[in-house]
């Protein structure tokens, strides 16, 4: 299936966010088009994670506007963002440690599950059918991410790389239209990184999911992203296709020059 990049699905305008005296984001604007892979890069503490937190409503910016699917809002709240089809993974894995892989992924479908607790207490008729139907979808995701053999394992016992993959599975279970990934490959070995890259590309191509991705590995970013935003000290210092950004002297000075 050929990739189609559509219209702007998410438009961020003049976003500013501060914590007490610390300015995490200053007057940042950029947009995300339907179907693209949009990368956010920048040195440590540049404000990348804060940006994702603004998009799905964990943080509320003091200034700026967010337009998602034509709807304008000053701030999101996380529940609303989820209901509108935004899912994410976290930089520091945020899985439900006491639950199995399967249960973790099943939670991703909670918004689609309609039966209330009284039905569930009976586990009868509609409630049972609903569980089974969603289990089927979750099994497809489990196959897709090749984690069949760990589905009954408590996530706390899994190695780091697999936990990252389970977190992706949980986000995918929500069938999001916009997927936010905060350093999905951090701390992985080369092989795990390659797998994760493949999964991200497959999600984007096969499911048509729009992806916003934070990543430190420049090779990866250049390979898979359509456009890149560069942040530094909470300001946007670059925005464009990977080749353009890579050759931008300001970006090289601030970021690429430093460690790479």
């Amino acid at each position, binding site marked *: 299936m050929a990739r189609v990049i559509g219209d702007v699905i998410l438009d961020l305008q003049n976003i500013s966010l501060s914590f007490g005296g610390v300015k995490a984001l200053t007057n940042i604007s950029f947009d995300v088009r339907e179907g693209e892979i949009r990368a956010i890069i920048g040195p440590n503490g540049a404000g990348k994670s804060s940006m994702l937190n603004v998009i*799905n409503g*964990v943080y509320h910016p003091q200034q700026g506007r967010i337009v998602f699917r034509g709807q304008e809002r000053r701030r999101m709240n*996380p*529940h609303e*963002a*989820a*209901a509108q089809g935004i*899912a*994410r993974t*976290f930089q520091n894995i*945020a*899985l*439900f*440690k*006491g*639950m199995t892989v399967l*249960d973790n992924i*099943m*939670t*991703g479908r*909670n*918004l689609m*599950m309609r*039966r*209330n*607790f009284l039905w*569930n*207490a*009976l*586990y009868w008729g509609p*409630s*049972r059918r*609903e*569980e*089974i139907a969603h*289990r*089927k979808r979750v*099994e497809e995701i489990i196959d897709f991410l090749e984690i069949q053999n760990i589905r009954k394992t408590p996530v706390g016992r899994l190695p780091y790389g697999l936990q990252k993959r389970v977190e992706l599975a*949980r*986000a995918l279970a*929500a069938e999001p239209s916009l997927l936010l990934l905060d350093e999905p490959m951090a701390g992985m070995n080369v092989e795990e990184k390659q797998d994760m890259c493949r999964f991200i590309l497959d999600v984007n191509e096969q499911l048509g999911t729009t992806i916003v991705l934070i990543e430190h590995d420049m090779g990866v970013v250049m390979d898979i992203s359509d456009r890149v935003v560069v942040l530094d000290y909470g300001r946007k210092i670059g925005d464009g296709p990977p080749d353009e950004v890579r050759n931008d002297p300001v970006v090289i000075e601030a970021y690429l020059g430093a460690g790479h």
Partner: protein
Amino acid sequence: MIYREAGQFKASYEADQQIFPIKQDRIVMAALVAAAFLVAPWAASEYWLQAVLTPVLVFALAALGLNLLTGYAGQLSLGTGAFMAVGAYATYNFLLRLDGLPFLVGLVLGGLSAAAVGVVFGLPSLRIKGFYLAMATLAAQFFIVWALTKFPWFSNYSSSGIITAQRIEILGFAFDTPARKYLLTLVIVSLLALAAKNLARTNTGRSWMAVRDMDVAAEVIGIPLMKTKLLAFAVSSFYCGIAGGLYAYTYLGTVEADGFGLDLSFKILFMIIIGGMGSVLGAFLGAAFILLLPVGLNVLMHTSVGALVPATLASNLELIVFGVLIIFFLIVEPHGLTRLWQIGKEKLRLWPFPH
């Protein structure tokens, strides 16, 4: 080799989502339930039915209620005793004041009253967690016991604030012997345990556990924190309320508000710590263990081993054993007896071939 999963392939997700997916577990559970229903009422003495088996069931239900809230949803509560008191007193008043109200309806109304009170005292959980929430539930504990003592209306102006349970009659059949009361308790507790297990394995239970394990992530995937926490308080308090009703009606017969004090709350908390947090089985194991321990120690003290223990120590032995066990489970095995049972099963699965 007794526990062999090999060869038991699940043909459908339905089969895989059973409460006991392993056949041996199903057999053991079926045998236990059959014994509880068919053997115990006839084989056990009145003393055992009245003073051991019935209270084990009642406490298991209360522990189950607390476990839904604390073990599953991660909200620590020290108000279990108070929610039981609401259940007992509300059942009493509904039956007293509404003429001809069927017992079971009164009991359920008592449970619902406890659920309503539980939600009110659960409201602070929207802002505070852990230790501070425990303090808020502690306030509930003291306030409710105080209110039930202070306003004599609740105990129908009986001289000492004591309520005496009315006769239990269901469809004209009187539950007036220890065996009948035990059976009634058993039916109610079994049904509620099944419901709890169902909640735990469906979306409701997963949402509770998600909030327990990482509330930010739960919110981000669309689980509404407020609704989920308050539902946990409501369902948990309903269970505790029913347990309180049974405590008064099928176990003791007469109760006073002071009997539902902080001691009781702690006792039930210890049950889930020892039995296992976040497990339905754990509530039963914990209740049985804590109620049977004194009986067991007593027997032991009357043997030749007991004679060796100095009298001053003997009188405190129960407390010492409790203390040690609780510290052990808190530090070494937070999943309690349930986990030890699972480990035992895993060993059995391999036995007699260790590899």
